[in-house]
């Protein structure tokens, strides 16, 4: 008995020693840095020349509310996130639905649609900068030219240069890139449903559309949940795509870009870190309920 306990303890300790370095690294470089960021965000370190910053509480955060540039960036982020999540989910789902039937060359299509994911945001941004050329009619290039050629000339617009549409236009390349990933997730979801369920429904006389509506779709709810979470936090962090397409231009600034500008161009560390913390909280708002849900599921399955 005693032997067994000590054996368990020693394996536990051995295992623990193996993960100690990573625990330490995460503790210092993730949580330690977060704590440090929060600390700076509560000081008056608004320029590089302030050597001994004073504690100012939440003042930097309240300043953000009245900072029109922050609210502009925030608005852009909300618009972008909305269209990106809705667009990617729908596009990925439809593609999964088409492939789910087990058509010929499914493997080809699956990797075909996944390839955009392999392209770096910066390279993609540069190409989409050309595609989203704002010139119309005779001078048109990129998508506008394409729209003309297929007789949809009335749809031409100035894409990311229009004041209200900029954030929506930027969602297009993001949707294009991530839709294949969502396709793969949904396809895996469909594959995870046992065939017996369909058989049973068929035996009961359910039509094909009813099988989808009442048998298959409800089973995909966890997958949908996962998709929304992944897209949600990817969207909140979007930075390189925006920089790749339009640099740090005002019209397409999102929260992460404004954070960069505040910290490194203006050297307003207090503001930059406050924005970073707001961004972290936004992401936590999405991720934490998800993690709790996952843990709950795992406990139930045990």
């Amino acid at each position, binding site marked *: 008995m*005693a032997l067994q306990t000590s054996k368990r303890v*020693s394996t536990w300790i051995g295992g623990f020693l193996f993960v100690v370095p990573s625990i330490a690294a995460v503790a210092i470089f993730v949580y330690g840095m977060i704590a440090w960021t929060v600390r700076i965000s509560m000081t008056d370190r608004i320029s*590089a020349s302030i050597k001994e910053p004073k504690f100012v509480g939440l003042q930097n955060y309240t300043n953000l509310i009245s900072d029109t540039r922050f609210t502009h960036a925030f608005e852009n982020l909300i618009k972008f996130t909305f269209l990106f999540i809705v667009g990617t989910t729908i596009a990925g789902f439809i593609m999964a639905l088409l492939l789910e039937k087990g058509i010929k060359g499914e493997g080809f299509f699956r990797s075909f649609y996944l390839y955009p994911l392999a392209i770096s945001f910066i390279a993609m941004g540069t190409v989409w900068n050309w595609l989203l050329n704002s*010139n119309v009619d005779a001078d048109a290039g990129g998508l506008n030219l394409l729209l003309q050629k297929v007789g949809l000339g009335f749809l031409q617009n100035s894409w990311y240069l229009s004041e209200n549409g900029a954030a929506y236009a930027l969602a297009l390349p993001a949707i294009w890139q991530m839709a294949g990933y969502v396709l793969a997730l949904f396809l895996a979801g469909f594959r995870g449903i046992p065939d017996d369920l369909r058989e049973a429904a068929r035996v009961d006389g359910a039509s094909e559309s009813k099988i989808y509506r009442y048998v298959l779709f409800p089973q995909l709810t966890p997958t949908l949940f996962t998709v929304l979470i992944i897209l949600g936090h990817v969207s909140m962090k979007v930075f390189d795509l925006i920089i790749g397409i*339009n640099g740090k231009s*005002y019209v397409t600034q999102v929260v992460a870009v404004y954070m960069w*500008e505040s910290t*490194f*161009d*203006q050297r307003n560390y207090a503001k930059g870190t406050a924005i970073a913390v707001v961004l972290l909280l936004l992401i936590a708002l999405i991720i934490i309920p998800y993690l709790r849900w996952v843990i709950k599921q795992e406990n139930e399955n045990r």
Partner: protein
Amino acid sequence: MRKSTYKFVAGLFAIALLAAGCSSSSDEAATEETATEESAAPAAADPELEIFTWWAAGGEALGLAGLEAEFATNNPDTKYINAAISGGAGVNAKAVLQSRLDANDPPDSFQAHAGMELDGYVKGGQLEDLTFLYKEQGWDTIFPADLIKTLTVDGKIYSVPVNIHRANVLWWNPATAEKAGLTAAPTTLDEFFAALDKFKKIGIPGLALAGKGDWAIAHLLDWMLVATLGPDAFEGLFNGTTSWTGPEVEGALKNFQKALSYGNKGAGNLDWPDAGKLVTSGKAGFFIMGDWASAQWQADGLKLGTDYTWAPAPGTVGIYQWLSDSFTLPVGAKHRNAGIAWLTVSGSKAGQDAFNPKKGSIPARTDADTSLYDDYLKAAMEQWKTDRLVGSTVHGVTGNNALMAAYNAAVGKYFSGGAKDNKGLAADLAAAYEAGKA
């Protein structure tokens, strides 16, 4: 039980050994470092020199290479390390530099625009006073006094200027101008707008605009403020004697709005070289850009005088809106002697004449060898001596980094909103000025 305890103890022991090994090796490294420093100090010649710039490509990189060659002849024992980080106007480099300065790991010299941009580093206590070097080299009399003033804080001089660029230059293609029936360069704003109309008549936009990244449009506003307000009131904007929301700026913004209305379509997609190409290829009339455009075009194989030509921007004839690149000596530079040697070369006649013809700028020194420079630069050197000098906002002379960032964003907001909200722009510019004071 005994076996597992043994294992456990052995494990602990191993870890202790590892930890001890780590600490002793780092101690060794530390002693080694101090040893080399001590032995290097009395010899005066540092083994290395690390220079930090954002001149990574094109004429800028060639100019830097010229300066490096000059340094190598004078300091053969010092190894030159180029820590250039690319990105126009230093957009990426400044972030990297800032983090290195914060970590007390400065390069031996770094590039900074003369003026308020430098001010930020000085206030942060990150630069050494270079007054001694000015005395030693006799630079007090060789650099123009107005320029030295912008490098001076509380009576101490903090950097060595290597060049002067001019921001307010009007560029056009002589063939296009002939087609539009233009006989002479416009010298006033009225003549400018009349010329824009002529370009419009032959079916091309009068003014090439580059909206990507906002700064080139802000550059245009910077010129328009000088052209409309005059140099004194313009300088007043940055010392609080001219109001950003008053009638003078209102008038300037009206002119700005009018000028933008002659712009090319899709300007927001373009960087400044793209917009410049519109002019040199005859697809747009005028281009208002700093004189680095000339260096770029010559690198593209175009000829000054036949493929493109220039004049002082309208409304600012006799005014030289300038910016200057300068080198500094950071506090805590590892190779301070080499850094000082670099600054000596940067400020010398030979150094400046090696650097500037390639960079496409004029030397900050007033005694350069004019035969090395092209016709534009020769004329610019003459005007630099006689013109009224005003600083550039977008390039860090009249405003610090915070002001610049907010200034560019204010213009970007206005431009992407269709150039309609003049009142909003004035308010945003006023806020940018306030942001710069913090």
